[in-house]
């Protein structure tokens, strides 16, 4: 009897230490509040430390319009602010009412990770706004700096060498990370709630569907359908991650990408770059630990790129943006 009690006590202590579902969920929290905006102007700023993307939707005759401000840090951690903006002369006022956060916690066991979270906020800032051709500059305290028009910044993307392919992979990852950041609980233990699948809209178009096979077989499938968070960059395909309960396993299958933009003189959109990323990754404790991303541009060779390439989110080598 005493042995049983000791075992029960030990089990409770282990369970308490594990804290296996991360922070409490929010009662009544909708999984996805995004209403796709259609193709909207996107601006990008890249530094070695972080990449920042702003989507300013067209006001469409109204006083204010939606915006998103996405920041992907060098270590992949991401923050997305979503809300509305309006212009007043040479100033733009951003009012955010949602904040998405993904803190990269690969150093922790899966059961102790926070996972992606969404918070309701009420925060606003006004910035000086100057547009000079394909560059916008936002000044204020703190200044956001200058951003290049997304299609123009990516116009030189190519993958004829391995370093170029590595940078293309990181640009591809911007959309993947942005999409995952909006999946409540993703990259954390409460991902298990998707044993009942759910669909999340892209900021601009399309959707992703996330599903987990079962509590005891936490194999995750993410399927993208014409998904776009940033102007012109669209992804399709499936990422499949079979793992055991400790997060040991693989990431497999393929996602296709295409970047297109209208030429400066108007007319239909033209493809800037397109290809696919095949996943052949190993996971250990829910953290990429080996394997490759196999990046292939349409009509080009396949580059097997180390899993470590995507762990350093610096796109300055192939994205032409003001500093």
């Amino acid at each position, binding site marked *: 009897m005493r042995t049983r009690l000791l075992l029960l006590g030990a089990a409770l202590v282990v369970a308490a230490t594990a804290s296996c579902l991360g922070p*409490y*969920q*929010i*009662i009544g929290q909708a999984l*996805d509040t995004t209403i796709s905006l259609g193709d909207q102007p996107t601006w990008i700023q890249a530094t070695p430390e972080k990449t920042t993307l702003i989507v300013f939707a067209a006001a469409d005759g109204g006083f204010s319009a939606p915006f998103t401000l996405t920041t992907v840090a060098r270590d992949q951690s991401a923050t997305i602010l979503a809300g509305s903006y309006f212009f007043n002369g040479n100033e733009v006022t951003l009012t955010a009412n949602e904040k998405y956060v993904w803190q990269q916690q690969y150093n922790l066991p899966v059961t102790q990770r926070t996972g992606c979270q969404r918070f309701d906020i009420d925060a606003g800032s006004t910035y000086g706004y100057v547009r000079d051709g394909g560059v916008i500059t936002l000044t204020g305290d703190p200044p956001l700096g200058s951003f290049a028009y997304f299609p123009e910044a990516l116009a030189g993307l190519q993958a004829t060498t391995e370093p170029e392919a590595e940078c293309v992979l990181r640009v591809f990852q911007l959309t993947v990370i942005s999409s995952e950041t909006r999946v409540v609980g993703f990259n954390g233990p409460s991902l298990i709630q998707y044993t*009942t699948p759910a669909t999340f809209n892209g900021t601009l178009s399309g959707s992703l569907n996330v599903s987990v096979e079962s509590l005891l077989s936490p194999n995750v499938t993410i399927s993208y359908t014409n998904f776009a968070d940033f102007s012109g960059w669209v992804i399709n395909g499936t990422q499949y991650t079979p793992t055991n309960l400790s997060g040991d396993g693989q990431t497999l299958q393929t996602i296709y990408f295409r970047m297109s933009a209208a030429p400066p003189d108007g007319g239909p959109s033209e493809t800037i770059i397109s290809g696919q990323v095949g996943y052949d990754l190993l996971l250990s404790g829910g953290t990429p630990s080996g394997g490759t991303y196999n990046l292939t541009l349409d009509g080009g060779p396949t580059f097997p790129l180390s899993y470590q390439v995507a762990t350093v989110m610096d796109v300055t080598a192939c994205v032409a943006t003001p500093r």
Partner: protein
Amino acid sequence: MWLLAAAPARGEAQHTIGPAYQLMIIDTKQGNTSQFQGPGVSYVATLGGLWGFQGTFTAYFPLAAYQNGTHVTVSDVYTSAWGIDAVFAVLRRVCFPPALQLDLGFGPHLDGVAMKGKRTSSNNGYSDFNSFTMGLGVSAVLRWRLGSGPVTVGAFGTGAVDFLDLLHGGDLSVGFGVSGGAVVGVDLQ
């Protein structure tokens, strides 16, 4: 005139069951307050005499919830919602002759709730909510014996303060649990 006395129970064990109402409040370190409440069914098992053991178990079904003061109708958001609440108490009995008996208890408390978020085709649905908190609780059962037979009727209440969550251990600030209800029971040899 009331007396501390040996049990007037006719048997070694008293088993009672009845309708209940359960309220749970969870304050998180992230600054959120989650509250849910609903009806349930309680079972109280009492063993011993002047001192003994008392287990109070409630299965409940949250119907209303509040998140930071905002009301949520559980059936609108969750496909299923249920909870369990238990107090495992050391018992002290107080008797009020000729037919009243009050059993007071103090001991460990457990509460678990699982609410499965709905999925909808229009807006994709809602996140799950679950908790499994532990702490210390008190219980009180007041019984009135019907005649000289083994049957009693009465009421019960429990209160608890929780300080540990087995699912969200790092995020629980403090939890409070309260339940109450009516019971009818029988003494068994």
